[in-house]
């Protein structure tokens, strides 16, 4: 809720490029960064006489999303033609789903989904000259490599109440889609694109205000900036007694400002009608079962499971939302007897230093066990981890070879503590004089003397014991 009692109401429309082998309606392999117009065929170039054939893998991905988000799967969904003229549209229409999408309803986290449908992407236009747009460009050239790439459009209900919630939810969506393996979900490269519908209303009311549609926010930061700017703009308008006009706004990442798209560009009558070249999409039980069997554990489910096993909440979220590290954590936890909570901390240590491939999960598990058993201190455990990253090997052998083992009950630590007390009479005096903080001036030398092999808590205990404080 905003200051002044305004409540933002936000819904998102997300386009996800599906990471299929071939395009949505032809057998061209997907291509990113290839020479322009090398990943094309008569079908995706819209040559006369060609016909679309629906990509089974894209449908499978659609079903994976439907199951992951608990959507209702349409028994017969229909592809429509969305007609408009533009050079990035080879056929003069986009094949998309309209009134009967593959998936309706569903939920992810705290946001309900309205629908998910399948469609094809447009080609890429490059405008030469100053304007950067087709109007007023010196020339415009078309790269049809992207044309026909499968897209899923995910539309939420207007359940989001703040720019931060929008950003967090989009991150959850991204990790979930990544875990599903349906897309590489990269906002900068455009495989994940997010538009936002924004309106405001008085807090406590339930009517929806006039919404605007925000486009071109191609990073999480821009998404939040754009929504934030639009909320403030709308509040400013309404508080000045003006009305919000329903329009499409373009976010400029340089100025972080929103400007209306020319009304001519949005005043389309798309003349939707059922695509006569395709039969209805009717997923069979076998197709749905195949998707169910392929459904991985999702980030939200992992997070709950990790937290239940004792992993700290922030660590559980971190590992669950990054499948690479989550998988690594699972392998390490299964490889040894250390508690998941401890293993998770060591995975975090590794994550701060390198990649999962740097250390065998079993070696990390062994390290966690050594620290848990107080064979090695936490501090020297980090030294062992550095050795593991650099040279690999067995943690116990590294401890042995490098003399990193924790000091036991041999009396060695007591002797060092006694020596440090003897060497620092002035500090001892300050401590006895009631300055408890001065204790640190004794801990440091002890730790140096022991080369990190002493447990900090034990050093403190012995110092207090010998000083009688």
């Amino acid at each position: 809720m905003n200051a002044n009692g305004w409540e933002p109401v936000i819904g998102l429309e997300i386009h996800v490029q599906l990471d299929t082998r071939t395009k949505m309606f032809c057998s061209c392999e997907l291509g990113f960064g290839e020479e322009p117009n090398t990943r094309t065929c008569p079908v995706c170039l819209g040559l006369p006489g060609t016909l679309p054939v629906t990509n089974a893998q894209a449908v499978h991905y659609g079903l994976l999303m439907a199951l992951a988000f608990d959507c209702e799967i349409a028994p017969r969904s229909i592809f429509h033609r969305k007609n408009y003229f533009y050079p990035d549209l080879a056929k003069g229409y986009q094949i998309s789903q309209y009134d009967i999408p593959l998936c309706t309803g569903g939920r992810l986290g705290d946001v309900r989904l309205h629908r998910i449908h399948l469609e094809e992407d447009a080609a890429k236009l490059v405008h030469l000259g100053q304007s950067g747009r087709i109007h007023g460009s010196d020339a415009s050239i078309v790269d049809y490599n992207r044309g026909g790439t499968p897209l899923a459009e995910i539309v939420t209900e207007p359940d989001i109440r703040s720019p931060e919630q929008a950003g967090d939810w989009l991150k959850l969506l991204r990790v979930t889609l990544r875990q599903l393996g349906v897309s590489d979900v990269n906002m900068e490269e455009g495989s994940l694109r997010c538009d936002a519908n924004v309106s405001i209303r008085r807090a406590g009311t339930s009517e929806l205000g006039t919404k605007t549609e925000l486009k071109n926010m191609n990073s999480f930061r821009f998404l939040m900036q754009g929504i934030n700017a639009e909320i403030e703009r709308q509040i400013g308008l309404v508080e000045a007694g003006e009305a919000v006009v329903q329009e499409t706004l373009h976010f400029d990442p340089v100025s972080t400002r929103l400007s209306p798209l020319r009304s001519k560009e949005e005043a389309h009558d798309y003349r939707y009608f059922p695509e006569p070249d395709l039969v209805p999409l009717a997923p069979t039980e076998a197709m749905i079962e195949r998707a169910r069997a392929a459904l991985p554990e999702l980030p939200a489910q992992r997070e709950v499971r990790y937290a239940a096993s004792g992993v700290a909440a922030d660590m559980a979220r971190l590992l669950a939302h990054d499948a690479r590290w989550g998988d690594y954590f699972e392998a390490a936890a299964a490889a040894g007897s250390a508690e998941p909570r401890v293993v998770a901390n060591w995975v975090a240590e590794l994550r701060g230093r390198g990649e999962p491939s740097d250390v065998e999960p079993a070696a990390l598990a062994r390290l966690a066990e050594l620290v848990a058993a107080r064979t090695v201190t936490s501090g020297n455990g980090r030294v062992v981890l550095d050795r593991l990253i650099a040279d690999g090997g067995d943690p116990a052998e590294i401890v042995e070879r490098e003399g990193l083992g924790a000091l036991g009950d041999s009396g060695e630590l007591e002797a060092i503590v006694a020596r440090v007390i003897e060497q620092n009479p002035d500090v001892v005096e300050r401590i006895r004089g009631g300055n408890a903080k001065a204790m640190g001036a004794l801990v440091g030398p002890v730790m140096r003397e022991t080369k990190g092999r002493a447990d900090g808590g034990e050093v403190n205990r012995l110092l207090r014991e010998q000083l009688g404080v």
Partner: protein
Amino acid sequence: MTDLLDLTAAEAAARIRAGDVDVDAGELWAAYRDRAAADELNAFTWVADEAPEVDPSGPLGGVPVAVKDLFCTQGVPSQAGSRILEGYRPPFTATAVERLTAAGAPLLGKTNQDEFAMGSSNENSGYGPVLNPWDRARVPGGSSGGSAAAVAAGMAPWAIGTDTGGSIRQPAALCGIVGMKPTYGAVSRYGMIAFASSLDQAGPLTRDVTDCALLLSAMVGADPCDSTSLGLPEPVALPSRTDLRGVRLGVPEELTGEGIEPGVLDAFRSTLDLARELGASIEPMQLPHAPHGLAAYYVIAPAEASSNLARYDGVRYGFRADGDRDLLGMYTHTREAGFGAEVKRRIMLGTYALSSGYYDAYYGRAQKVRTLIADDFRRAWESVDFVVTPTSPGVAFELGAKTDDQWAMYLNDFCTVPMPLAGIPAISIPNGMAGGLPTAFQVTGPAFSENRILETAFALEQAIGFDGSAARA
């Protein structure tokens, strides 16, 4: 040489395959190629210089085939009768044509047609009208007018065309040959330059019913490149039936009375008499919604066409108007100059019918009528085996006679439009002459009844004994 040209395609194919020394595939090719090259009817838009390599031992025996311009043929002009595709040579070949080549029929040439298959007289071609071989002052029908005229005039042994509202059957009727529109989905549409996707279907135009069956047998089949293709449940067989005992022919009162020219109606009744003599029973019946077929057709087909023809925008291939420095100018001038009047008329009709606020009243309503027409036929099959009508309400008319009256022109399809709307097969066979011009008889059956239709048409053909040789002279 004349001996070769007198043979039907199936006879020639059989003799070539049997190794008959009197019938050589190369000589047959040369004979037809010479006649096609000397075309005086404007039936061909392109004729092959030399025969492509095909295997004459295939079922089609090396007998060359003429192909309607709108079938894409690799490296060969495929312009769909439109100036907007002038000089367009596709990088691939339509599935139907590939199947014919694989079955042993080399491509003889591409035939003229109404632009994008929109027309019933072939006067809408961007490459000039086709003349009727029976009377060169008259139209051959359309839109597959070039294919029909080529076969009727003996410039091609056989040909293929496409039928959306009658575009195979009506020109076949006006040229005195056989034409068949198969069940929707029997033949792949891949590589057919689309007019109206939910109606377009390829089929044969041939000298007789046996040729029709043989050519069709090689065309049909499901195609992974066409999601709407199914093939046929059983292979197409060569017909042999000579009687019609037990066959019930339904005569729908809506399509056999008002609006049919007297000469056509006389020939129709004579054929019914012959059918009765062959053992058939003639059953008066109703197709109550069939008269609304034309109205529904002229909403649905233009609607689909308005979308199918959006790709001709000057950006990628074909004609582009010069001189524009902005996108809208290039689009509008390219389409203004590239499309003919009838195509523009239908694009506008279709765009309107799909527009927001009008969709339900036009496209939605037309689809309902379509369903009702299909239901009429389904009910009919409970009491009759086939529905029979004249194919065309009239014989070939004079060039220019109907160009100023669109509705009169559209009425040509009155008897042929209900079948594609219902997706069902129908054949047209010549059944007589009226005023020196051929008349035709149409046999319609349920979906996938091609073999039964061919048997029935064959029996009638034998009894009628139509002689089309005058047009080949």
